Each structure stands twice: as structure tokens, then as C-alpha cells.
């Protein structure tokens, strides 16, 4: 797991800084390659965003019922995924929630090896974009152990799935044989 490597790096740096403070009286460490002096900030920041989903609540209600919803403009019939509560095409606010068929085909995909820190506890994951019958595209992880089986044009089915270890509901692309 990449997280172990990342965390080891962070721990090493912290120990180095601690040592430097003892010896020099400052959090100043030498750059590993250049030997130049680097001040390691004492003010570590933890960021976690709090995002409103009030107007698309129904989408999450859908996931808990095993359904994947999009919104559709009652005026111009435009379908929105990700769902939005108003139509930016015709400025209409009268939208309906529609359940997506989940059926479609894969447009493209990738496998992420070098992961962001907050994803480093996962094994390498595959992300794809699929076009559904409804004419809209969906980005999601592809749940398929056999990488060779995944092709551009593969028939897919979008499903609700639980993400571990966080234990929250999301959706995944599955490959149909």
C-alpha cells in the first residue's frame, strides 16, 4: 500500500525536524540533495470541506434504495448527470428525478498507480467513463479484477456499491461479459 510509504516519509521528516530543533533551536533541515537550508513550518493545517448537497438530496436517497438518479428538465428534456437542480440550458427550475438504466458502454479508462495521499490506503484502482443508454456519461471506479477484460467499448452496468473501509454508498461500473 502506498500509504505506508507516504507515512514513512512524513514520519522521517518529522523526526528530522524534531532533531534539528534540539540541535539548532529551529525547525531548519538541509535539503536532501542540495544541502540548502529549509524551514519546515510549525503550523500544520488540516483541511476538510463541508459541502451542501441539499438540492440534490434525492440522489443520495436513491443510492440508499439501490437506484442511481439523474435529473431531467421538464421544459427541454435535458438530462443532467451529475444531477443539478436547475436547467442551465433553459434556466428552468422544474426538474424531475429519473432513474438511470445503468446500461451502456465504456468510453475510456485508466488505472491509478500513483495515488493522492487520501487515496493511498486503496489498492491500485481503475477509473472509467461510460456512456449510458440515456446519452449521458458517468465517471466511476470499474469493479473488475481482470484488467485485460476491460476494453474501450466494453458493455457495462452501473451499480450502487458500498465503498470500504469508509463504508459509504457510491456507484461502480461493472463489466458485462
Amino acid at each position, binding site marked *: 500500500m502506498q500509504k505506508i510509504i*507516504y507515512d514513512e*516519509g*512524513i514520519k522521517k*521528516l518529522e523526526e528530522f525536524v524534531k532533531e534539528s530543533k534540539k540541535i539548532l533551536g529551529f525547525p531548519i533541515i538541509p*535539503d536532501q*540533495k*542540495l544541502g*540548502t537550508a*529549509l524551514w519546515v*513550518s510549525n503550523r500544520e493545517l488540516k483541511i476538510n*470541506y463541508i*459541502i451542501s448537497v441539499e438540492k440534490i438530496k434525492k440522489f443520495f436517497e436513491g443510492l440508499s434504495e439501490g437506484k442511481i438518479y439523474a435529473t431531467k428538465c421538464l421544459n427541454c428534456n435535458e438530462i443532467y*448527470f*451529475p444531477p443539478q437542480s436547475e436547467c442551465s440550458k433553459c434556466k428552468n427550475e422544474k426538474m424531475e428525478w429519473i432513474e438511470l438504466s445503468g446500461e451502456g458502454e465504456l*468510453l*475510456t*479508462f*485508466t*488505472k*491509478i*498507480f*500513483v*495515488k*493522492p*495521499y*487520501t*487515496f*493511498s490506503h*486503496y489498492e491500485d*484502482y481503475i*477509473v472509467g*467513463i461510460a456512456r449510458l443508454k440515456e446519452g*449521458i*456519461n*458517468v*465517471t*466511476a*471506479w470499474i469493479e473488475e479484477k481482470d484488467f485485460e477484460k476491460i*476494453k*474501450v*467499448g466494453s458493455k457495462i452496468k452501473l451499480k450502487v456499491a458500498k*465503498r470500504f473501509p469508509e463504508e459509504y454508498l*457510491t456507484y461502480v461500473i461493472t463489466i458485462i461479459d
Partner: protein
Amino acid sequence: MERKVGIIGVGSSRFGIRNDVNFNELAYESFKEAINEANIDLKDVSFLVVSNIGGWSSEPLPAVTIGEYLGLTGIGTLRVEAACASGSAAIKTAHDMIKSGEGEVVGVVGIEKMNESTTPVVVEMIGRAGNYFWEFENFGLTFPGYYALYATAYMNKYGAKEEDLCEVAIKNHYYGARNPKAHFQKEVTLEECMRSRYVAWPLKLYDCTPISDGSATVILASEDYIRKSGIKEPIWIKSIGYSNDTSNLSKRDNFLSLKASVEAAEKAYKKANIDKDKLTKIFDVIEVHDCFTIAEILAYEDLGLFKRGEGYKVVREKQTYIGGIIPVNLSGGLKAKGHPLGATGVSMIAELVKQLNYKAEKQRQADIKNGYALAHNVGGTGHYAYVTILSR
């Protein structure tokens, strides 16, 4: 009559892991060079535009700290963000000010100091630069990941191979090895590239730009100022084209082309009266946005230099080296020169001004016949695009 806008001085810092200087010192490195080349009084600079994305670096108000360090206070400044195209957006801001009569001399400093944060943090923050909630929060896409989605689709459609992508890296490292300010100043072989580990399949480490620090400065001036000051041989900005696209990649029709690039190029050609059928004859040298090897191939096609599906063959045939159909990224490109995001667009213009003035290092100097050059600068994964046309 429209006011013409010229470039009277350019500068660039050395790109790379710049743990030997702080943020402001890095900015000053390129500014000093540019202001000395322009050979003007600092008092003549009437506005400062700073291109920087930040977040990974400690200063949240970069335009202000740089303004103080450069001795440019009491004039007005702002920071411009258009992801990796911030530099071009900053130049457009300065250009438009001068063109509208709002200023005579405007300085543009592009800077990024990415190594003030650790690699996992930088990977995280760039990965968030798409659509945070629908792409990152659940699916942890990374910047190489977004471009890998394009690479997969392109390779599937046209039959390009990973080896073909490597050819872009080989070319850009070849020129980077001849650019004393490049992050990577060494050539790479096909074997080395093919052996490098996957970052986001099908992209490997050698398909990706490094995490770089660097700054670049361009000083723009009005035609009146240029004539009055007796400045000889400025480089003129002929036109700037621009466009944008959806934040969610899933909202796009295909993954074979960056639509914003196509639209930006169209606008730039139209404004400059460029014959689209003769692009490779008109331009002497081009810098394209090769944040990943696939991006350079897409750029060839999106700019209309080569037909759809031909981009990778062109690289394979080495037609974008000096002496080929059209030389591209003689600076080493983002790939080898380095990609300090906010500095990149400004650095492209600085490079092309050097090329047009025959001031590039001999081994990477293009033959200047018509005196036309083009910079193609993309922000995010085709989220923003700017195309700037320069002429002597």
C-alpha cells in the same frame, strides 16, 4: 485604431527543485532578467499581473509579496488563475489593459513553487483540479489519470502505442538537454522511457512532467511607448485565442481531442488572419502544452498542424524536431523544461521571444523565416485553453 501590444523584455529562472531560494527570490530571478533586457525605469511599470495557482506554497497572496519584493508597490496588482494556463491568462490580462489604453507598460510574472509541499500533497491537490465532488472525492483521479483517459481513447482509436508516446518524451528531453534552464537536462532513450513505472496506465513516469519550481517574466508595452523609447525589434502579440470546457470530463463528447484547444486556436488564427491550410509554413516555431506526452500529440491535431490520427506518426517520423516539418517545444517543453504551473504560460512566451530574436542556445535555435511563433497553453485537462500568436 487598435493599439498594438509588444513584448520588450523576457526572463526565466532556472526550473527544477528550487530549494535554494524562497518564493519571492524565485520571482525576482526572472523579473531581474526581463527588466534588464527591457532596459526601462521601474517607475514606468504601471501594473503587475501575477500568475500563480498556489495552495502547495506558503504565500496565499502571491501578487502582494512579489510586488513588495520587486519594488512594485503603489501601482496595482492581481493574481490570475487559469490552472496550468494561468500564465497565458495573465498575459491576456496585461495585453488587454494595454490595448484598451489602461496602461503603457505592464509586467507579468508567472511563478509556481510546488516543492514547498511534499509529493503526496501535490499529487492530491492537482488531482482535485477537475471537478472536486464528482471526480475526486469518490474516485481519486489524479492529473496523470485525467490525461490517461485521453491516452486510452486515442490509442484505441488510432492504434498509437506506448512507444509512440515515449517518442515525445525523447524529443523534448533532447532539447531540454540543450536548455541550461531546464529541469531535466539529459536525454532519455526509448528503453528508459518504456521501462519507467506506470503512474496512471497507460502513462508512465517518463510520460509525465515533473513537479517543478520556477518563474518567468514578460514585460509588455504599448506601441506608443515602444516607439517613443526607441526600443528596437520588439516582438508583437498578433492575437490571443481562448476557450474553456466542462469541469467534469464525463460531460464531454469524446476523449480524442481537447475541444477548448481547437476553439482557442480557431479564434487566434481568425484574429491574426492566419491561413489555416498553411500553418506549418507560416510558423517558424511552436511551443505546445505537453504536460503529458499524449497532450503534445493531441495539440498537434487540435491546433490543426496535422490531421486527426496523424499526430503520433509525426513524432515517430521525427517531424517536429529542427529540420522537420515544424519544430515544436525546442525549450524541452513542459516535459523536460519543467512545469511550474503558473510560470508555464509566461515561460512559453519568454521562450518564443528568444527564438524569434535568435537568442536561444545554438543547438536548439529554430530557423526564423517568417518571424511567426505560436504558444499553446492548456489549463487542467482542457478546462482552459489559450493560443497566443507572436510575430517579429
